């Protein structure tokens, strides 16, 4: 069964690209969110297998959204997506329980491998 993914990024262009490469690989993007609040709502609603969460988003950032999602579902598989120079935020995310992270700009393989590893656990 195809892995169901929720994409959260404030840039629609980024979501478009990610959706494209994920679908080519056979994953199903079951939802998209453009900020943290929406991401939490969509998670509760759709219960995806994996959430790919951008760390910098308006209204509620990825870190906060991640904490909220983990409250809803402690087993949630979350992959944080960040830009270079955000190591401090990533460390905070790890402390808060994120399963993996990827750093932009990334090659598609990075994303696949992160999702596969997350699915194993």
């Amino acid at each position, binding site marked *: 069964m195809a892995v169901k993914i929720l994409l959260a990024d404030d840039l629609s262009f980024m979501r478009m690209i990610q959706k494209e490469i994920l679908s080519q690989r056979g994953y199903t993007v079951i939802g998209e969110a453009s900020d943290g609040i929406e991401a939490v709502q969509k998670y509760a609603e759709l219960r995806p297998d994996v959430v790919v969460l951008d760390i910098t988003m308006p209204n509620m950032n990825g870190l906060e959204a991640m904490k909220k999602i983990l409250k809803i579902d402690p087993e949630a598989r979350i992959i944080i997506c960040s830009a270079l120079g955000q*190591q401090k935020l990533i*460390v905070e995310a*790890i402390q808060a329980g994120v399963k993996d*992270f990827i*750093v932009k700009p990334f090659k598609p393989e990075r994303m696949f*491998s992160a999702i596969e*590893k997350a699915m194993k656990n």
Partner: protein
Amino acid sequence: MAVSGIDSNKLRRAFIEEAEELLEKLDSDLLELENNPEDKDLINEIFRVMHSLKSESAVVGFSSLSNLAHKLEDVFEKLRSGEMSLEQSKMDLILGAVDAVHEMIASIAKGGHGEEIDITEILDELKLLCGETVTSRLESKTLGETKKKQIAIEKIWEFSEFELNQLKEAMERNERFYRLTCTVDPESPMKYARAFLVFTNLEQVVNVIKTIPPFDREVEEDDSYGELVVYLTTSGDDRDIYRATEVDEIQKVELIKLSYDDFLKGGDVKREIRETAEKKAKPRRIEKSSIRIETRKIDELWRLVGELVINKSQIEKLMKNVLSNGMAGELGEYIESAIDSLDKISEGIQQAIMETRMVPIAVIFNKLPRLVRDLSRKLGKQVKLEVSGEETEIDRSIVEALSEPITHLIRNALDHGIEYPEERIARGKAVEGIIKVSAYQEGGNIILQIEDDGKGFDTERIREVAMAKGMIGEEEISENELLKVVFNPGFSTKEEITELSGRGVGMDVVANKIKEQLKGDVNLHTVKGRGTRITIMLPLTLTILQAVIVESGGKYYAIPVRRTEETVEIVNTELIYEAEKTLYNYRGKNIPVIYFDKLLGKRAGKSEDNYGVIISHGNRIACLIVDRLIEEQDIVIKPIDDILNENHIFSGVSILGDGKIVYILDTSTILELS
């Protein structure tokens, strides 16, 4: 005895600094040797470097590196004695081995122990070259195992009391003890975060005792951990450990089971040492806010200040002319006060930069307790080390060059000086020998003494060996003169090779370093059966010199003030003429007269009035006759080219405020020529 803490990191840093310095010289020497394979001086020099490297690394516990350096030393010993000649194939092997030395030091610099570099093959080839038999590969393998154990033991230095306690508890709970090593993909953009993710995952499934590097502080944006070592205990499934490391961009994972005994037993001893060292170190700890600056940068600043000082005096001289001619008009007063403040500022800068170059000699002394402890245990001797004056400040550039001779002298004192307990009892001495190391400042000099209450030098034996080696003739010479041969290259009264002090390359290395590189002096005082005292005298700084400027034959020369007793006006009739030499009565003693212009190969001084500078160095003294005394001032020493310095009577040159060049006299050479 006041000793600051034994800090393995400090030790490691100091070792690396020294090793890198040794290697820098080594590389250029090797390249030269390839072109001149017969050059005995070069072979000697490389032999010494290997010898130093071997001893240094043995002391710090990098045994693999020490072994390799030892084998290379053996090769150069054979080259030096002429037992072996140097063909290209051998050169290739040597260069390969030296590359391995580089790699090991680089790995040590990164926190390793040098054993990470496999040198079995190189060692075997070097052994074959020296005509030794080579152990089979299988035996080397088991050797490798014991080495691994050593790594573990050495790592204990990095375990805190708390961590050792945790280990003990885990052992009592019957948990297994592992070391996990993970390598992060070198391409990974956030290596710290990757390593941190592994660490976090592990913490959920096992008991993490310690990680290297640690995660106990706030992360910085540019933190980057290429490799993570985790010491952990667990009663769970090993597969959980591997699963925790299944993180993206983690490439290599190695899990090794460790024995508690290695850590806890060794830990007791090390803990004891650390505790006593910490106790002693605590009251002395002064927290200063500081930043690290490359020495190179400070040296450059220092050089620029030297130029500034020269330039400033040039301006001063110029303005004096302008002012005395009334050319400045009413601006004169302003110019004068501006120059005044320029003078103060440049002096302030000079002082401030000089201070940045000064460090307490404790940086060298701190290594000594460990050295003495390790060596005395190895030798089965009982030795107490007494250190004083560790707050004495010395120029940083001296520190690096000074550390080696001091360690060498201590090693000598322990190895050859202090007797074995039974021997000491038989001689009615206290069982525990004493080595005293002290430092203090006296005028522009730093005085260092290393004293032991051991058996002293056997002067009769020295005389025999020196005569046999043709270093002295049949004639009677004073004990002082005799003791100087100890500092000659190739002199040794000990025939056998010992691991500690080696085969008599010691004292000449020491003397060479102190005299040539540090512009100092070394003296030996020994009483048979009672002990030995070695006194090292060093200039406070190597680049600025307080000097008496004199004129001779229309040129200017500088004499270091610290080598000057007095300056006197001399009427020719005051001199005492004898058949071969001229003497001058100085404070009731007839001392030799040196005509400086004669020394330079010019006409003999015949003028009616002359000036004399009484110079002294060690126990030699003489009256140096010059035409005129100019002034006393601080000058900046610059190196002198050998072409201008055939007799080696100069130690450098300097430029005065008016642009005049002065030659700085090397008083020790001049006194020896008299």
